[in-house]
């Protein structure tokens, strides 16, 4: 148009620089995918994707790279964490959103948020010092305390703040008219919570649980410290099927972290493949949570 002044010039340069910054995340995601999948390709090629995810034997020394045991390990630990942690988290969320007087909620909320800031290695240490010895007192053959149950308890505490705060937000964002309408019709406060608020906040609550699931699946160090790290399919040691929770196990994340520093060749590639499986699982979980959240907004 006209001669660009120095000001216009800076303006244009900065717009481009900022747009490039905005695209950095995309670049990183692409690089992560390309490099992780690239390094995993030899394992997928030599062993076969299906064979890897359906075989339970992980014995790098003799060239066996089945990761089903670790998929099951991650799965059962996450399940345990959800069973233990979600009821408590939802209870706390309802408490904070609807029941607690404002000054109590104002003290409880930061306490729960503090749990989110505690390093995972500290949870692992706490698990080793407190949870594992407690679990060890359960009489069962071969129970050393390290295993699925200890890992689930530790994880349940770790997902508590995530699930609580997102669920509380979901309950709070139910339009006030719903609450008032229900109360005006003669429902008690509890009936309003149960029949109106929780159903209305359901998409948000479900996505909170799913995000907690994602966090649980991605946890690494705390798991290594309390789960026993045996690359075996978790199994019941006695007639009681619940004793499966006393079994040692290994998670997908732990498999990578424990072995990557000394792995070479196909073994290393198989660990990258473990990473790809984990990445895909978590992407699926997170995108379903995002989808639900969008639905909830409508």
């Amino acid at each position, binding site marked *: 148009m006209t001669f660009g002044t120095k000001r216009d010039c800076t303006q244009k340069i900065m717009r481009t620089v900022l747009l490039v910054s*905005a*695209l950095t995340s995309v670049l990183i995601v692409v690089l992560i995918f390309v490099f*992780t999948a690239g390094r995993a390709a030899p394992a997928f090629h030599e062993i076969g994707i299906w064979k890897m995810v359906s075989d339970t034997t992980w014995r790098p020394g003799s060239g066996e790279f089945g990761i089903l045991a670790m998929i099951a390990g991650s799965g059962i630990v996450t399940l345990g964490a959800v069973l233990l942690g979600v009821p408590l988290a939802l209870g706390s969320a309802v408490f904070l959103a609807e029941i607690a007087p404002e000054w109590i909620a104002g003290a*409880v909320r930061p306490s*729960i948020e503090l749990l989110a800031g505690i390093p995972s290695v500290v949870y692992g240490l706490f698990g080793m*010092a407190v949870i594992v010895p407690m679990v060890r007192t359960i009489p069962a053959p071969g129970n050393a305390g390290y295993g699925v149950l200890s890992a689930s308890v530790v994880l349940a505490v770790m997902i508590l703040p995530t699930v609580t705060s997102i669920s509380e937000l979901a309950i709070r964002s139910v339009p006030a008219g719903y609450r008032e309408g229900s109360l005006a019709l003669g429902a008690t406060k509890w009936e309003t919570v149960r029949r109106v608020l929780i159903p209305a906040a359901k998409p948000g609550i479900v996505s909170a649980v799913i995000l907690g699931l994602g966090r649980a699946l*991605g946890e690494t160090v705390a798991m290594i410290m309390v789960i026993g790290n045996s690359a075996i399919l978790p199994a019941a040691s006695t007639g009681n099927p619940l004793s499966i929770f006393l079994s040692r196990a290994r998670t997908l*994340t732990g498999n990578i972290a424990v072995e990557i520093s000394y792995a070479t060749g196909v073994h290393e590639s198989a660990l990258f493949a473990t990473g790809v499986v984990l*990445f895909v699982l978590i992407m699926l979980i997170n995108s379903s949570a995002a989808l639900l959240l969008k639905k909830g907004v409508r």
Partner: protein
Amino acid sequence: MNRRKLSQNAAFSLFWAAGIMSVLIMAVVVGYVLVKGLPGISFDFFTTSPRGGLSGEGGIYSTIVTTFYLVVVTLAFAIPPGVGAAVYFSEYSGSTVGSLTGKLVNLARFGVDTLAGVPSIVFGLFGYAVFVTAMNLGFSILSASMAGACLIIPVIIRTTEDALESVPSGYREGSLALGANRWETTWKVVLPAAFRGISTGILLSAGRIVSETAIFFVTLGGSYRVPHSLMSGGRTMALHVYYLAMETRAFDRAMSTAAVLVGLVVVMNLGINTITGRITGKQR
């Protein structure tokens, strides 16, 4: 009527129990670590380095130095693209809906959301594949901080965006009406006004780096020596807790290091709450 009242009381006492239980859990975790860890902390604990080996003797000096370097270098990598992206999303992307740039903005947003969901061990694998091995930087602060930056860029973007959006639009309109262009408005009006909120996000990201273990477990090497350059490996305080607990007999020292970490996290949280409290207080 009585039964309805009764079931309300029963349900509400369960909710109270849940709330109290959550606070108790926090108190037990933090309390246990502090009570067991603090007695082992002395002045020497901070000023001597770990001696290595099975006994786990020595303090945590070198791990403090490594943690500090790592936080500074990681922030240096993450702040420019993080804040830049947030500024673009908040200040520039409004008028682009429907155009080609609009599509790029959607793509960029998708990238940020995806990045925020990547599990940290995958960042570790990525750092190991690209920085440690392919670029041949080895286990070093440089490799670890680039991998760590990927973890905190989404955090910085989100918190900065929130901070920018809480700047009243009148500031921008006033500046634009006085003849400043979009960039001058952003640089001289909006960013200074959002400074506190942005600092909160940066403090939060620093906390994430201090707390993170998985990424650095596979990119930082774990040497217990004091790092002397960006190419040195090392171990952060969090990593030191792991090594002490898993590979030495010094469980008490692991607990003391954990107590230092927990203390740091509590102080940082208080700091963040004070800053954000002041912001909201100011707006009222």
